C-alpha cells in the first residue's frame, strides 16, 4: 500500500518536473510571464512531492517491510532505528531519491527569492534545475525504482516487480540482508549527505551561469547572486571530504585517511575546480577579468559533479565505495554527454561577449597570484583526473588492468600542493591592481623571519627530513602571515576607534567577513597541512605476533597484550576484542581495545582500530589475526601517526572560517544602489 503511494507520488513528481521544463521553454519562447510563473510553481511543487516519496521509503524501512526489495537489501531487524532511517542513502535507489530530494529543495529555495532585477534569468535557472532533477527522477523511475517488491507467481516462481503479475502473492522475507557494515558508522551517516549537499548546491551557480550565457547578461550579476550558494556548496563538499577521511581513518583500518580511491577522487575533483572558482570569481568582481575562465570553471565543476556521481554508480571503475553494478550507466552517460556538449557549445557561442573589462598590470598583483593559484588547482585536477581514468584506458587498449596508487598521486601533486601553500601565504599580502616586490617584501619579511626561526628550532629539535622542514617553513609562514594580518587590522582599528582587543577583532571580522573568514579558512588549511606532513613523512609502523603478556615496541611506545575476548554481540555480529596496555617511555598511559567485527548477514569482517589520540600524535593499534586454539598469540599492527590530529583540528577551523564567510547577512539582497555605512557606494561592497 505504502509502496504504491510512494510510487504514485514519484510518477506525479516526474510528470510535474517534465511539465515545468515545457512551461519554462514556452515561457521563454512566448516571452510570457504567466508560463514562467507556472514553471516556477511546478518547480516548487516537486519539493513536497519528493519529500513524500522519501518519507514513504523511510516508513517502509522503519517498519521493516521486507517484501520491498530495497528494504530487504539495506536493513535487517537487528539494526537500530537511526540506521534504518539513514539506510535511505545506504543503497543505490534510495540514495538517488535522497539526491533528487536535496536537488529539489535547493532549486526550490532559489526560486523563492525575489527576482525583480533578474527576471530574465528565472526561466533558464528553472530549466537547468528541472532538467537535472528530471534526469535523476527518470533514473529512479525507470532503472532504480525503490518500491519494487518480491512476488510469488501461481507457478511458484519468484518475481521482482512493482506490480504483482496476475495471480501472484506477495513474498515476504523474514528478515533483510542488513546494511553494509562499513556504512554503520556515524561518519558514514553524515558523510554522504554532506557530499550530496555539496554536489547539489553546485548545480545552482551552474544554472545561473547557463542563464547568464543564454541571456547574454554576462556582467558579474550571476556571480554576485550565486556567491553564497557557491560558498555553501563548497562548505558541504569540504565537510563531506573531511568527514569521509575521518571515517576511513576510524573504520577502514589501514592507518590512513585518504587512499586516492576512484570514488574519493570523484568527490575531490569538483572540490578542486570549486576552490579555483571561489578564488577566481573574486577577480571578476574586483577587476572585471577572467569572465571566460569563470564560466569554464563552473561548467567544469558541474560536469565533474555529474561525472563523479556517474563513476560512483555505474560500476565503470571499481572501488570500495561503489554501489553494486547497475543499469543506469548508459542513461547517465547520455546525460553527461549531452550536458557537456551543450555547455561547451554555449560557451563557444558566447565567447565573444565574455571579454574582460580591465587589464592586468603586474605579475605580483593579487589577480595575477589568484590566476597562478588557479593554474595550480588545475594542475592537481589534471593529475587526479588522469590517474583516475587511466586504468580504464589501459584496460581498454591493452586488456590489462593497472593500479594507479597513492604513490603516483603523492609524488605528482606534492610539489603542486607545496606551491599552493606558499601562494596562500603571499597572495593575501598582495594588492588588487598591482603590488611590487618592495611592497610585498616589506609585508613578508617579518613573518618569514619568524617562520625561519620555527624551522631552525625544528632542526635543532632533531628533525632532519628536508622535505618536512620545507613543509614546516611553509606552514609556519602562512600561520604567521595570517596572524600578522589580523594583528595589523586589529591595531589599526583600535587606534582609530579605541576599542578593546576582542571588540576590535570582532568588529574587524564582522565588517569584512569574506576576507577574514577566508583567512580563518587558510589557517585551517595550513593546520591540516601540518597533520598531513606529520602522517605522510613521519608515520612509523610495526607488526608482530605476541602471546599474552608479550609486548611490541614502536619508538617510545610499548604495547602489551593482556587479553582477547571473543563474543557475539546482540546486533548480529561476532566481536573479537583485544585489550592492550600502552606505555610511553616506560610509563603506563592507557588501555586500548582494537577489535574485529564480523557481521553475520554479510560475512564481512571489519577491523576497528584502538586509538590513543593526543595533540602530538596517535597510537593506532590494529588487531590483525589470532590463533584461536594454540597460544602462539595475537598479531597486532601498530601505527604511530605524528601530528595527525591537526588534520581534524584544521578541519574544524576550516569549517568555522567558512561559516564566518558564508553566514547570511541581515540584508542578503541589497536594493540596487543602497546607501550603506553612510556612503554612496554600489551594493557590491558588502563583502571583500
Amino acid at each position, binding site marked *: 500500500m505504502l509502496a504504491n503511494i510512494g510510487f504514485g507520488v514519484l510518477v506525479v513528481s516526474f510528470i510535474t518536473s517534465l511539465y515545468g521544463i515545457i512551461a519554462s521553454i514556452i515561457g521563454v519562447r512566448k516571452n510570457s510571464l504567466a508560463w514562467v510563473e507556472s514553471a516556477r510553481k511546478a518547480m516548487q511543487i516537486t519539493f513536497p512531492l519528493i519529500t513524500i516519496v522519501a518519507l514513504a521509503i523511510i516508513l517502509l524501512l522503519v517498519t521493516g517491510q521486507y517484501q520491498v526489495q530495497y528494504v530487504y537489501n539495506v536493513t535487517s531487524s537487528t539494526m537500530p532505528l537511526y540506521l534504518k532511517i539513514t539506510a535511505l542513502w545506504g543503497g543505490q535507489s534510495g540514495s538517488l531519491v535522497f539526491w533528487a530530494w536535496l536537488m529539489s529543495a535547493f532549486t526550490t529555495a532559489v526560486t523563492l527569492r525575489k527576482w525583480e532585477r533578474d527576471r530574465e534569468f528565472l526561466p533558464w535557472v528553472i530549466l537547468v534545475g528541472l532538467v537535472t532533477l528530471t534526469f535523476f527522477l527518470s533514473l529512479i523511475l525507470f532503472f532504480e525504482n525503490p518500491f519494487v517488491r518480491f512476488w510469488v507467481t501461481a507457478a511458484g516462481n519468484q518475481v521482482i516487480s512493482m506490480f504483482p503479475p496476475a495471480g501472484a502473492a506477495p513474498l515476504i522475507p523474514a528478515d533483510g540482508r542488513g546494511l553494509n557494515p562499513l556504512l554503520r558508522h556515524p561518519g558514514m551517516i553524515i558523510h554522504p549527505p554532506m557530499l550530496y549537499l555539496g554536489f547539489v548546491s553546485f548545480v545552482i551557480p551552474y544554472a545561473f551561469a547557463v542563464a547568464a550565457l543564454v541571456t547574454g547578461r554576462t556582467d558579474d550579476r550571476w556571480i554576485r547572486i550565486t556567491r553564497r550558494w557557491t560558498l555553501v556548496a563548497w562548505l558541504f563538499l569540504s565537510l563531506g571530504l573531511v568527514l569521509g577521511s575521518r571515517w576511513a581513518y576510524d573504520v577502514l583500518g589501514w592507518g590512513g585517511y585518504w587512499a586516492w580511491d576512484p570514488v574519493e577522487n570523484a568527490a575531490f575533483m569538483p572540490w578542486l575546480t570549486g576552490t579555483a572558482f571561489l578564488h577566481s570569481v573574486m577577480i571578476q568582481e574586483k577587476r572585471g577579468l577572467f569572465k571566460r575562465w569563470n564560466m569554464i570553471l563552473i561548467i567544469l565543476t558541474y560536469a565533474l559533479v555529474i561525472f563523479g556521481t556517474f563513476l560512483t554508480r555505474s560500476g565503470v571503475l571499481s572501488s570500495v565505495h561503489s554501489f553494486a553494478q547497475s543499469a543506469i550507466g548508459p542513461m547517465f552517460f547520455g546525460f553527461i*554527454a549531452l550536458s557537456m556538449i551543450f555547455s561547451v557549445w554555449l560557451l563557444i557561442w558566447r565567447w565573444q561577449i565574455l571579454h574582460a573589462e580591465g587589464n592586468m598590470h603586474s605579475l605580483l598583483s593579487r589577480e595575477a597570484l589568484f590566476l597562478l593559484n588557479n593554474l595550480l588547482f588545475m594542475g592537481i585536477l589534471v593529475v587526479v583526473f588522469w590517474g583516475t581514468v587511466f586504468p580504464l584506458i589501459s584496460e581498454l587498449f591493452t586488456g590489462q588492468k593497472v593500479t594507479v596508487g597513492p604513490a603516483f598521486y603523492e609524488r605528482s601533486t606534492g610539489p603542486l600542493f607545496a606551491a599552493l601553500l606558499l601562494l596562500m601565504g603571499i597572495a593575501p599580502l598582495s594588492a588588487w591592481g598591482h603590488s611590487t616586490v618592495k611592497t610585498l617584501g616589506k609585508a613578508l619579511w617579518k613573518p618569514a623571519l619568524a617562520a625561519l626561526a620555527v624551522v631552525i628550532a625544528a632542526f635543532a629539535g632533531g628533525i632532519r627530513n628536508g622535505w618536512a622542514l620545507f613543509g614546516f617553513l611553509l606552514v609556519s609562514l602562512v600561520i604567521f602571515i595570517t596572524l600578522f594580518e589580523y594583528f595589523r587590522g586589529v591595531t589599526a582599528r583600535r587606534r582609530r576607534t579605541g576599542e578593546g582587543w576582542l571588540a576590535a577583532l570582532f568588529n574587524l571580522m564582522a565588517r569584512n567577513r569574506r576576507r577574514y573568514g577566508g583567512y580563518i579558512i587558510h589557517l585551517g588549511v595550513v593546520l591540516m597541512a601540518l597533520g598531513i606532513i606529520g602522517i605522510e613523512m613521519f608515520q612509523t609502523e610495526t607488526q608482530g605476533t605476541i602471546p599474552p603478556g608479550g609486548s611490541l615496541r614502536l619508538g617510545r611506545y610499548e604495547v602489551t597484550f593482556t587479553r582477547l575476548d571473543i563474543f557475539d554481540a546482540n546486533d548480529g555480529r561476532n566481536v573479537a576484542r583485544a585489550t592492550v596496555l600502552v606505555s610511553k617511555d616506560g610509563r603506563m598511559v592507557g588501555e586500548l581495545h582494537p577489535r574485529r567485527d564480523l557481521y553475520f548477514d554479510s560475512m564481512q569482517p571489519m577491523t576497528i582500530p584502538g586509538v590513543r589520540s593526543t595533540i602530538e600524535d596517535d597510537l593506532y593499534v590494529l588487531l590483525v589475526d589470532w590463533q584461536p586454539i594454540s597460544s602462539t598469540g595475537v598479531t597486532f599492527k601498530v601505527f604511530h601517526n605524528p601530528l595527525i590530529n591537526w588534520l581534524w583540528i584544521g578541519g574544524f577551523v576550516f569549517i568555522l572560517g567558512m561559516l564566518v564567510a558564508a553566514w547570511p547577512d541581515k540584508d542578503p539582497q541589497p536594493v540596487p544602489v543602497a546607501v550603506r555605512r553612510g556612503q554612496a557606494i554600489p551594493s557590491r561592497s558588502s563583502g571583500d
Partner: protein
Amino acid sequence: MVEERINNAEKTNRQTLPRWVVGLVFAVLIGFLVLIGLGLRRTQEGPIVIGQKVPYFELKTFDGEVYHTQQMQGKVIVVNFWASWCKPCEQEAFELEEAWQFYKPRGDVVFLGVDYVDTEPEAKAFIQQFGLTYPNGPDLRTRISQMFRIQGVPETYIIDREGRLAFVKKGPFLSVTEIRGAVDPLLP
C-alpha cells in the same frame, strides 16, 4: 583613463575563438566521451557474451603441462575459476571432479581449472584435498580471468564444440546434475 583601458582590453579580448581551437575542444570532448562510453560498454557486458567465439588461451598446469584451447577444437570445454581461499569453491570441488570422471571416458569434454589470484602451496593443497584430476593451473598475469571478466570465484564458463561461449555460471554448482544439465545439451 579607465575608458581607455577598457577600450584597450576590448581590442585584445574581443575576438572569436580560432576555428582550430573550437575543433580541438570538441575533438577532446568527443574523444573523452567515446573512451568513457567504450569503458562503460565493457563493464556492462564484458568482452565475451553467450554465443560469441571465445578467443584461444593457454593454461600451464601446476605440473608444468601446457594446454592450449586451440588444440581442443571440437570438444566441449568447461572452464572453472577457483581459488584456495574461496569457501564456496570447496562446495563444488567434489561435484566438478565427479562430473569430470563421468565425462572423461567420452573424450570430447575437457575440464580446465583456472586458479585465480592464488598462492601455489595452498592451491596444490586444495587440489590434493579434493582429489582433482583434471588439469589445473594458475591464471598467470590474471590474463584468462580478465579475458572472461570474471567478477569473483567460483565462476564457470562452458565453451561449445564450435568454440562459442554456451553457458555461464556465477557461484558454485550445487550438484552434479546441475553440471550435467549444462554440459549434456552441448553434446551430440
